[in-house]
């Protein structure tokens, strides 16, 4: 279907189904149950799943295929956000022009940075991209304040031109459908929210994912994997790797721009902190945690990190007291003292530990974990037939 083979079609359909049903799947606990805090089916978080999924899919086209590790991809995200907000300021609140401009501007910016950075490879390339992103971040706070509105962040004011505003809504919308509006379904004790903004993001996530599959399976994708594998041979095959790595860099920059444009579309505000190195590092973590070089890995990684971030950072001392309340006072206090370093604002410690564990024991990321579980289950069912299958799975493992 759609020019994909059977396996890829199934993968695409599974992702499509999960995206469609996310508001239900992510809200498994009734509203009033004590477990409701683990529900993730609210608009803001679901939108972040989809947006960071797009960001990570794009990053994986560069890092997973060519092996070039960019530490500055948040710059493209930030540029995308600024472009989108400028569209809201100048034209109006329809998200279509905003998203288109954010992709184009991020692509051009990526062309410039990639053209310079790709002169080097390995750690020097990473440092160059990091330097450019930090430069963009600092400039956004200083020289470029007319464009970025500095520390306040870029936002829409009532005296902005907005020449196409007409009598449409005064919040981001898609031909009248407001991003922040949603329908709520009550089913007994459960409650499911179906937000417009999320579905816009989800559709674009699917389109991005489909495009990524096509790139992975194309001669271009094969070429990128060959570049990762052996640049010497590439040169002695009469091909200079540069134009192709640059193309991959620009494509992944455009994905980041799309993600940035969507962020601004969900909440018409853009700040420079989106370009900070922590944001660049986050997408690296997502991709590696999920499984670099695999198709589904980046989406899993993005979902996993955003979910954990949300859950862990919501747990505070009060919640911990609730959990350990039954224990003797001394033990309770000791446990809480330990636990509170890992939750709330200390959640990054947990993320660091998780990342270390995954990289050490599952170098292929969550995808490899899934494959191992699958193989284990398979082997128990039918010992004989499993060997050929597991060999194939081993070969499919991403390059480490």
């Amino acid at each position, binding site marked *: 279907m759609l*020019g994909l*083979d059977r396996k890829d079609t199934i993968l695409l359909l599974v992702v499509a189904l999960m995206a469609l049903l996310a508001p239900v799947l992510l809200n498994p606990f009734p509203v009033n149950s004590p477990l409701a805090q683990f529900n993730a089916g609210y608009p803001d978080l679901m939108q972040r799943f989809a947006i960071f999924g797009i960001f990570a899919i794009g990053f994986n086209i560069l890092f997973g295929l060519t092996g070039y590790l960019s530490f500055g991809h948040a710059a493209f995200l930030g540029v995308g956000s600024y472009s989108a907000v400028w569209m809201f300021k100048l034209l109006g609140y329809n998200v279509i022009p905003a998203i288109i401009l954010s992709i184009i501007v991020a692509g051009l910016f990526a062309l410039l940075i990639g053209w310079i950075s790709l002169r080097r490879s390995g750690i020097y390339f990473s440092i160059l991209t990091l330097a450019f992103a930090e430069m963009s971040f600092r400039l956004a706070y200083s020289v470029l304040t007319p464009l970025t509105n500095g520390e306040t962040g870029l936002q829409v004011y009532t005296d902005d031109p907005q020449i196409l505003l007409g009598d449409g809504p005064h919040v981001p919308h898609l031909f009248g459908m407001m991003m922040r509006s949603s329908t709520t379904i009550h089913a007994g004790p459960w409650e499911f929210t179906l937000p417009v903004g999320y579905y816009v993001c989800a559709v674009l996530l699917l389109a991005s994912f489909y495009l990524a599959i*096509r*790139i992975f*399976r*194309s*001669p*271009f*994708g*094969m*070429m990128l*994997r*060959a570049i*990762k*594998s*052996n640049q*010497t*041979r*590439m*040169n*002695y*095959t*009469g*091909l*200079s790797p540069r134009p*192709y790595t640059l*193309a991959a860099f620009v494509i992944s920059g455009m994905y980041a721009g799309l993600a940035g444009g969507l962020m601004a579309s969900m909440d018409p505000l853009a700040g420079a902190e989106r370009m900070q190195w922590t944001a660049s590092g986050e997408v690296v973590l997502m991709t590696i945690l999920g499984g670099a070089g695999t198709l589904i890995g980046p989406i899993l990684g993005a979902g996993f990190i955003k979910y954990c971030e949300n859950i862990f950072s919501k747990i505070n001392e009060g919640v911990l007291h609730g959990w350990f309340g039954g224990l003797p006072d001394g033990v309770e206090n000791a446990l809480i003292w330990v636990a509170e370093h890992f939750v709330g604002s200390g959640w990054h410690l947990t993320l660091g530990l998780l990342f270390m564990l995954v990289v050490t024991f599952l170098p292929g990321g969550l995808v490899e974990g899934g494959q191992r579980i699958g193989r284990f289950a398979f082997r128990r069912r039918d010992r004989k037939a499993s060997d050929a299958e597991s060999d194939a799975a081993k*070969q499919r493992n991403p*390059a480490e």
Partner: protein
Amino acid sequence: MSILEVKDVNKRFGGLQALSHVNLSVAENSVHAIIGPNGAGKSTLLNCLVGKLIPDTGSVMFDGQSVLGRKPYEINQMGIARVFQTPEIFGDLTVIENVLIPCFAKRDGTYRMHAFEQVRRERALVEEAEHMLEDVNMQDKRDMHAASMSRGDKRRLEMAMCLVQQPRLLLLDEPTAGMARADTNNTIDLLKEIKQKRDITMCIIEHDMHVVFSLADRITVLAQGTPLVEDVPENIKGHPKVQEAYLGEAA
């Protein structure tokens, strides 16, 4: 007619004179072997031909055009392909994909990019690559991970990748080093077959005299960076200077 002309090439590495006053002329459609003891500068000479190294002085002309100052990929586009002493292949790719890369690459250095095509739908190119694999007897390894193969298979794969480009000059750096006798004989047969089938010039660096004498039309003996003699195989066999160079190594 000579297709490759090397004139008075010198190359120093620090205090070591790796090549001194090397002259070499390779006739079109011939098989020219370069032999010599370890460290004689054979690989260094090849590196100067493909743009990996730039000679300190001298000139290297391929088909009337200088190759000096050109990038390796530009030199390959001129029609020179190279098999390395340690195989350089795309280890993370499957065997067929390895051959497909040069199939998708056109001679002028552009690549049939088609970001939205699918590799398996490019029938003509896939068939071309499959034929090439049959030619080197690797069709049964088609979907293997290239890095997991034996050294001999890797080298045959590398040869296939070079040949599918239809180069005019093929440079081979010790193509049978580390191979078992049977594999070596297969390689000799393969090279002979290739030679019969198409117009190609080969320049082979080799240690194994059996290989050299079964293939070469002319032989150059290199020792300590200087060509000692150049002649047809019959005359090289008993040449006193050659014996000296090789005995010198053994001593």
